[in-house]
Structure formats: C-alpha cells, structure tokens
C-alpha cells in the first residue's frame, strides 16, 4: 500500500462525516476496507480522535468561507470532487 492511498483515506475521513463516523466506530475495518496495510491500520487505530473531529470541522468552515469569497474557484473544486468521487475507492456502502 502506498502513502498516496493513505493520504486519500485521510482526505475521505476529513471530508465525509459518515465515513468519519464509520471509521471511529471501527477504525481497523474501515482502513482495511480502503486497502491499507496492517501497519497503516494499526497507525490509524491510534488516531487523535479529538483532533480529527476538530480538523474536519475546521476544513468544512474553510470550504464554506471559500464558497462565499471565491464562488468560481469553489464551484470548480466542487465539480472536481464530484467527478473524483465517481472513481474513488471509498464508496458509501
């Protein structure tokens, strides 16, 4: 498994509250489902849970601010994210 997949998984749990809740409920299973290695699954079991929730909320606030201040760029990001989500390995289940 690659560092690239690990970053993609982190992005997923920062962005998607449902995925975050599933990950918190069963971190190893969710990390395993994303194809991460045993070592990475173990690392994720030791996640800073308080920090995860705070960071995710902070990112959401930043996106909302960006949507208001730079609607054109924000629209591009939203469209790009939508397209990327069709090919993402982390599908809602």
């Amino acid at each position, binding site marked *: 498994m690659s560092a690239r997949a*690990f*970053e993609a*998984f982190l992005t997923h749990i920062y962005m998607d509250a449902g995925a975050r809740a599933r990950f918190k409920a069963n971190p190893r299973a969710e990390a395993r489902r994303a194809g991460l290695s045993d070592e990475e699954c173990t690392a994720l079991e030791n996640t800073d849970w308080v920090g995860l929730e705070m960071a995710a909320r*902070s990112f959401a606030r930043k*996106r909302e601010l960006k949507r208001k201040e730079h609607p054109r760029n924000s629209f591009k990001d939203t469209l790009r994210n939508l397209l*990327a989500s069709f090919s993402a390995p982390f599908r809602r289940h």
Partner: protein
Amino acid sequence: MAAEGVEAVAAEAAVVAEADTMNELQDRVGLGWRADLAAGIFSHLEYIDLLEVVADDFFGAPRQIRALKTLASQVSVVLHGVGMGLASSVPVETKRLEKMARLVEQVRPEFWSEHLAFVRGGGIEIGHLAATPRTADTLEGAAENLSRAAALVGSKPIVENIATLIDPPGSNLSESAWISGILASADCDLLLDLHNVYANGLNHGYDPKAFLPQIPAARFRAIHIAGGKFISAPDGSQRLLDDHLHDVPDPVFELLEEAAALSPNPLTVILERDGAYPSMDCLLAQVELARQALARGRARRTVSQEVLV
C-alpha cells in the same frame, strides 16, 4: 562600579548598538496584502518594508495581475502560494506550477513560498491545508515536488510549516525531524510560521521554544506572525486555532526574539491578518513590536558571539 565593570557595560552597549544597526540594515517587517487593508497600507508605506501577496488569488486574472505589478513597482512584494500541496506523495500538478511560473515571471517577486501540507487526496480537494503524515515516504515526496517546482517555476520556493488541530495520523517522525529532512533533501529555506509553532506546541504537547533550535537556523529566511483563538474540543478540552483573526500574542513575539537570536541570516517577517481587521494603528503597533523583538534577538546573538570570541 569598578572600571572593569564600566568597560564591560560600555562594550555590551556598543555591541547592542551595532546589532541594532545591523538589524535596521538586514531584517525587514511587512504585512500580508489584503484588499480590505489597501487604503491603510498605501497611506503607511513608510512603516512597511514589504508586502506578501497570496499568489492563488491572481492565477488566471490578468486585470488583477496588472494591479499587482503596479503594487510591486511601489513596494517590495513576495508571493505566497496556498494550493499546491507540496508535502505529499502525490506529484504536484503541473498546471499549478505553470500558473505560479507565469505569475513569478510577471511580478518578479523577491521570492515565492508555499506550505508543507497536502490539500487533496484521491482527487478530492480538502479546501484547506492538511497536515501530512510525517514519514520517510512523504519526506521524499515533498523533496521531489520541491525539485519539480524549482525546475518549472525557475526558483525554489521557501516552504512553510503549518498549524494542525490533529496530530497527523500515521506519523513516525517528529515535526522538527520531518521539516529538517525536507529542507536538507530539497535544499530549501524555511518560512517559519511562529504562530503555527506556538499552536502546535500547545495542541500537541511540546515546548514551542525548544522546537526552534531543532531546525537548522541557517534555513530560517522568512517568518510569519499571527494570532488565533482557543476553541472547545468535543471532549471539553481546548485547542488553539490559527485563524489569523486576532492580534499576535506575546509568546509569538518571544518566539520571534528566539528566532532572531538563532538566525545567522537576514529575516523577512510578515504579519498575517485575514479578517476582523483592527485599526491600521493597531496593525502597525504589532509591526513595531516585531521590530523590537528582532532587535532583542539580534542583540542577544551578537553578545553571545562576542562571548564565544
């Protein structure tokens, strides 16, 4: 006082005076350019050594670039990127580097900078700077991205440490070891954000003052100072959010003094403020406090060098 004592005090005063002179010649203090501050900045240019402009705001905006070139003809300008995601195992997008290259070519800043962060994963944009897992893989990825950036833009960026509310999952290197490793591998200088050091120290349990000597001071080239606020965590604890909406707290000025005492090179200090703008007098007072902190640090550095000799 004995004659020897008087001589010692006089010698120290001379050293401090010399440091002050050096400081005036070398270190600079400026502001982050924000449109809301434009009128205040233009009417107080004599107190501002330079301006830092967010590069991404000017990508693909020819009219704004013309205005930026006009600005750059009146005051020193440096460019600051926020969207590349250089500290990642994912190669930085060529189109973003090309945009920066075009802007650098047009504006000809003294330097450009970017963050040691990742901003997207799996093709999804996070919309802000996320702390990269600190591993050998991401260190190598960052170094490769910095090498590509230097090749495409034509100059190396100065890289900035970021603030993070979460201790980045999967990390097996300390923040200082990871940053130092990237600086060495990519042969880049550091934009040392002192409020980020302060916030990370408080949030993740280390002493911010002890952090600074762990990074090679010869790499310090620019410094950010800013303020933030404490926010409540779901468990009732508090963490410091680096929101750039508050005045610079005293501990950050103390860190600035430390950085100046350590650095052998001229420093460019930028006060960042992104909203809840106070009066220009209040911002300029913080600029002045930064100058005083630099002078104190330089005086300490000079005195310690004299002792070594």
